């Protein structure tokens, strides 16, 4: 029985090819890491929220890229993260780790029942059901102002870190200093975790479900369970992203959960390249900075984005990463 070559390139790759595979992410993370030293405070805070979006998109791509489920309501988890941060900081619990933990707990408890309902459907029904749930949350946040502050939302104070005493610093230096690097560490950790998950049997089985649900079932893949696992993981990443995105804004309000925001999340994913593990990271960073420049350049920036999205959907479905990463090292 002849020993075959590596069935998956990364399995026993020679040093050369492995180095090339890691060059891309290393460059991206290096740029983000050095950013506070090379860019002005405005751009650093933009990168701060770009990291939040990157985390949310990593989760969303587990659903869209790996499991083939288009969620048009993922912004509801951004809102859950933001409101958790709002409630906790306004009751003087500002410890960042605690906020993240509570947000993850709430995100998961909300995601399981919604997930159980949504994963029974695919394609258009899944998209419409997730949109319906996110608009249900939007209406709830808007209408029950006694609980949620209605259109005024809830103020979010800058969180504190257990290890780092931030009391001496003003908000700007916190956002561009310690908290920036804390979120950066979180991003690296969550990227590695997602890389591990997608490289594990979960990743392979999700892709099998995406490709052919009936065949996967007959090969013993528990489609319902793994879709739910993917949905909850995507939700938790979305909630973490939501907390991070909301901190520089300082306010949690219903517009975070509006359906157009979910549409923008998918736009970012396509821009970066959903068929690529690093697509979400690149998509978030490019979208945030391009939007910042575009909004100053023209008041009709939505029109420009619409045209760009049309071009991507028709001509560059695999987004920027496809153009950059020839070797399909990181393809989902």
């Amino acid at each position, binding site marked *: 029985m002849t020993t075959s070559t590596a069935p998956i390139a990364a399995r026993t790759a020679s040093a050369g090819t492995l180095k090339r595979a890691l060059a891309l992410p290393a460059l991206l993370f290096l740029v983000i890491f050095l950013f506070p030293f090379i860019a*002005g*405070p*405005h*751009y650093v*805070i*933009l990168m701060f*929220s770009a990291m939040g979006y990157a985390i949310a998109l990593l989760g969303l791509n587990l659903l869209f890229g790996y499991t083939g489920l288009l969620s048009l309501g993922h912004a509801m988890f951004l809102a859950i993260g933001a409101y958790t941060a709002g409630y906790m900081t306004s009751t003087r619990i500002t410890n960042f780790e605690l906020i993240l933990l509570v947000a993850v707990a709430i995100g998961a408890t909300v995601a399981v029942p919604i997930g159980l309902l949504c994963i029974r459907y695919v394609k258009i029904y899944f998209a419409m059901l997730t949109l319906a749930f996110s608009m249900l949350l939007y209406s709830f946040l*808007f*209408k029950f*102002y006694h609980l949620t*502050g*209605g*259109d*005024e*939302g809830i*103020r979010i104070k800058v969180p504190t870190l257990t290890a780092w005493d931030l009391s001496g610093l*003003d*908000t*700007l230096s916190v956002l561009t200093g310690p908290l920036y690097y804390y979120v950066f560490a979180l991003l690296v950790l969550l990227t590695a975790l997602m890389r591990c998950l997608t490289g594990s049997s979960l990743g392979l089985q999700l892709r099998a479900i995406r490709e052919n649900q009936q065949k996967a079932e007959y090969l013993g893949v528990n489609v319902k369970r793994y879709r739910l696992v993917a949905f909850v993981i995507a939700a938790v990443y979305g909630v973490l992203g939501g907390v991070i*995105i*909301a901190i*520089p*804004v*300082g*306010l949690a*309000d219903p*517009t*975070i959960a*509006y359906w157009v925001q979910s549409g923008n999340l998918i736009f970012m994913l396509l821009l970066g390249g959903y068929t690529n593990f690093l697509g979400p990271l690149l998509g978030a960073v490019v979208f945030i900075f391009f939007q*910042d420049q575009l*909004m*100053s350049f*023209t*008041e*009709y920036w*939505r029109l420009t984005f619409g045209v760009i999205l049309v071009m991507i959907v028709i001509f560059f479905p695999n987004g920027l990463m496809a153009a950059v990463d020839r070797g399909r090292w990181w393809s989902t």
Partner: protein
Amino acid sequence: MSAQSRRNFLKLSGGAFALGSFAGAPAFAQSPPVKIGVLAARSGVLASIGECALATVQWWADGVNKAGGILGRKVELVVEEEGNPKETAERFRKLALRDNVEMVTGLISTGSGLSVGPIAEELKTIWMSWDATTQKDVEETLPNPKYSFRSTDNEVEGLMASLLTVKHFKGKIKTVANLGTDYSYGRNMWETFMAMMKKYDMGVAPVADLWVKVGTTDLTTFVASLQQAKPDLIMSSLLFTDAFIFVKQAHAAGLTGASKLVMPAGGFQLNEMKKQYTPEGMILGHNSMYFEAPNASPLLKEFVAYYKGKTGLFPHFEADRAYSAVASWKAGVEKAAQQTSGKWPSKDEIIKAIEGISVESLGGTFSYRPDHIPDCNFYMGFTTHNNPYDIVTISPVETLNTRDYQKPAGADFFKWIQAKQFPNLS
């Protein structure tokens, strides 16, 4: 000339002015232009308000530049968009940190105000708000702001409408209904109205409490529900498009004949209150600027003519809020410059100068209290058809100054209402 090309014109003219090539334009000293950040809404429900306020600020800037700028420096506007709170916070930081503007003016929605207030303090950038307050419902979330100068409490519209209701309908109405805009503003208005009804023991009972989401275009069901309730008086805090669609559909269903209407909210809908469907004798508010104020200043007359010429519409109070914000800042700079013998004053000096300053704005005098909240005139009255336009105007015009009708710094609003002896309207 769309806003985009206007901005290019300003940039272009900046260069031209510096070269003094325009005949008659004052040659500015070599000092750099003073950059003012403008956050104007461009999309969604607030878009037309943002454009009106932006046009006013640009008119003001052109005028200032023609008259030699501020302390010899030419005014240059850096325009950004007020979107949802996240976008607005980012645009504010961009203006403050990248364009390092001298001052940022703008903002209409409460959500953006609550998010930008703390950021202005954090970045030590003067923010002259148009209409966004930093209060949640009625209590202040930014107690003693240093860099933020926010706008008048909109509850004044509710107080004035209530006082007019007491003055004209005491003993004539038994039942009232609320058709509120589902917005913090709407809640404050209804609570203020009912508190005032109790204070002046009008003995009225609410028979309907309806809330309309901003942007609703089909209000027939709300009209039908109000007809079911048969209230003597309808207090409606509806804003923008909802306001005139309601009046139009109410007229079509015969509601405006049966119940008295109170619509305290000013706004661009004044151009759409057509005589065809807007009844006479309806209480209509114009907030801090009425385009046909009885003792209109030459400034107001000049602006109304300019604005009507350019857009074919009458300007509404947001123009006054925008004008007063930038004019007060300019006055503050010039007043502070007297102490620093003409040198450009520091931010702290400007802030101290603005506190307590009075400025001639479109709707009358604007004066900033020490707690950075301005006092100004408010205009309200009963609608009438006898005017040369196709829209209703108000006459007689009741005017009040918010000095006596705005809660003092840090006061609890509802306790203050109970205690306060409001001077009765003229």
